[in-house]
C-alpha cells in the first residue's frame, strides 16, 4: 500500500513537471511573438525618456498641409510649440498629484489645434514623455525660417486662474570675430519682436482671465535665451489648484489667446530679404 502511494505521488510530480514545462514553453513562444509588435505599438507614454528629439535638419513631422500662400509670403508660418519639462523632470508639482509636465502636454494639443486653425504649421518639441534639452528645443526653432517659439509652463505660485507671458530681458547683441551671434545670445536680435508678440498674447489673456497682467513680463528664462526667433513663455497659475478641472477649463482660452496673438503678430514680422540679415 505504502509503495502504491509513493508511486502515485511520483507520477503526480512527474505530470506536474511536464505540464509546467509545457506552460513555460507556451508563454515563451507567445512572448517572443508579441515583443516586436509591442515595440511597434509603443505610444508616447512608453517612449524612453532619453529619446532624442528630431534633429533640426529633419522636416517637421507635425506640420500640417493647411499653410496658406499669403502667410508664407508674410514670413511667419511656423510655430514651434514647447511643452516644458517631461521625462524625469516633472516641473512644478501640486499637492493633488498634478504635474506640470503632463498638463502642458495636454494644453499643447489644444494650442496646436487653435494655431492650425489660424493657418500655422506647428512643430512640437516633444510629443510624449520625452525631455529634450533646452538647446535641442531651441535648435528646432532656430532651424526654421520665419518661425515663432512658444513655451508652455504651469507655475507653483500666482493667483489660480491667471496667466502671464514672459519675454527675455534686453540682451547685448554681441557677435564674435567670425561675425556669428553666440548661441547663448541667440535671442538678442529678436527681443523687441518677442515683446510685440508677447504683448499681443498677454492682452488677450488679460481679457479672458481676470487678474492676469495687462502687459508682458520680462525674465531671464533659460529656454528663451538660446532661441533665434520671436519667443515667449506662457505661464499659467497654478499647480496648487484643488481641482484639476480648474486648469483644464483654462486650456481653450489659453489656446485661443496664443493663436489669435500669433495671427495678429504675423504682419509685424517681415523676414529680411537676405537670410543673413537681422530681422
Amino acid at each position, binding site marked *: 500500500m505504502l509503495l502504491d502511494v509513493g508511486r502515485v505521488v511520483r507520477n503526480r510530480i512527474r505530470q506536474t513537471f511536464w505540464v509546467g514545462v509545457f506552460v513555460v514553453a507556451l508563454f515563451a513562444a507567445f512572448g517572443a511573438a508579441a515583443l516586436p509588435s509591442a515595440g511597434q505599438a509603443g505610444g508616447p507614454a512608453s517612449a524612453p525618456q532619453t529619446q532624442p528629439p528630431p534633429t533640426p535638419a529633419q522636416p517637421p513631422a507635425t506640420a500640417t498641409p493647411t499653410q496658406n500662400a499669403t502667410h508664407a509670403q508674410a514670413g511667419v508660418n511656423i510655430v514651434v510649440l514647447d511643452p516644458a519639462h517631461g521625462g524625469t523632470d516633472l516641473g512644478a508639482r501640486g499637492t493633488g498629484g498634478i504635474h506640470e509636465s503632463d498638463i502642458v502636454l495636454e494644453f499643447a494639443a489644444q494650442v496646436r489645434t487653435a494655431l492650425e486653425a489660424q493657418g500655422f504649421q506647428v512643430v512640437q518639441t516633444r510629443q510624449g514623455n520625452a525631455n529634450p534639452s533646452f538647446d535641442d528645443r531651441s535648435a528646432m526653432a532656430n532651424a526654421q525660417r520665419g518661425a515663432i517659439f512658444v513655451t508652455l509652463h504651469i507655475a507653483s505660485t500666482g493667483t489660480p486662474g491667471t496667466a502671464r507671458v514672459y519675454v527675455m530681458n534686453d540682451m547685448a547683441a554681441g557677435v564674435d570675430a567670425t561675425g556669428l551671434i553666440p548661441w547663448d545670445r541667440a535671442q538678442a536680435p529678436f527681443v523687441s519682436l518677442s515683446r510685440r508678440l508677447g504683448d499681443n498674447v498677454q492682452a488677450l489673456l488679460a481679457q479672458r482671465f481676470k487678474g492676469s497682467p495687462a502687459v508682458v513680463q520680462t525674465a531671464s528664462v533659460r529656454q528663451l535665451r538660446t532661441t533665434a526667433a520671436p519667443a515667449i513663455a506662457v505661464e499659467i497659475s497654478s499647480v496648487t489648484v484643488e481641482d484639476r478641472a480648474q486648469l483644464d477649463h483654462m486650456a481653450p482660452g489659453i489656446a485661443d489667446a496664443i493663436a489669435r496673438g500669433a495671427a495678429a503678430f504675423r504682419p509685424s514680422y517681415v523676414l529680411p530679404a537676405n537670410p*543673413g540679415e537681422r530681422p
Partner: protein
Amino acid sequence: MILPRWRWWFLAALFLAVVIAAIYLPILRRNIKQAAKLQQRSEEQARRELTQPTVINPSDPKVKAKLFWASGADDGTLSAVTVDLPLSSEPVLRAKQVLNTLLAGPVDTELRTLPPDAALLAFYLLPDGTAIADFSEALGTSIPSGIESEQMAVDSIAKTLAANVPQVRQMKILIHGQEMGTLAGHLDLSQAFVVNANAVAPRTDNAGTGPSTSAARQLTPTATAVKLAAPPNNMATRP
C-alpha cells in the same frame, strides 16, 4: 513518528533561534534608526556651523536697510521693508549681513521669497563690482518651481543688494560653489544679473574677506563657446 534525538535537539535549537531573533530584531532596528538620526543631526549641525550667519556687530552704526520680500499681492511683485540694522561699512561683510537677514525672512512667512532652509555659503566682490553669491543647494531644491517664483527670488536678492551695497554692479549666483544652468528649471543662472549699473567701484582693501582676485576670477562665468548652428538657409546667424 519517532525522530532521532539529534533531530529533536536541532529543532529545539532552531525554535530558540527564531524566538531570539523575534525579540532581538526590533531592538536592532530601533538602534539602527537612532544611529541614522544621530548622524543626520550631526551633519545638520556641521552644516549650520559652516553656514552660520554673519554676526551683526552691535557697535556698527545702525542704518535703515531696505529688504525686498513679496508684496503679498500674489502677482509676483516685491515691496521694500525698512529695517534698522547695524551694518558694516565694509561691502562684503555688509552684503553678507543684509542677505542673511533677507534669508531669515519677514515676520509674515507667507511673504518669503527664499526657502527657509537656504543659506548663504560665501560672498565675494570683485574689483569690477561683480558680486558672487554662493548659496546652499536648498535655494534650488526648495524653491517653488516656476518662472514667477524663481524670478521673485533673484529679484529680491538683486534689489536688496542694490539698495544696501552700492558697490555691487552685477551679481552671479552659484549653488554650492557650482555654476548652475537654472535655479529650479526656469530662470537662467549662467549669466550675471545686473544689480546697479551705476555702482561705485568697490575699495580694493577687501582681499581679506574674499578670495584673491585671481581665485575669484576663476569663479566668474565665461561666455559659452558654443555658436549658433547654421540652419540650412543661414538665417539669423549673422547680425
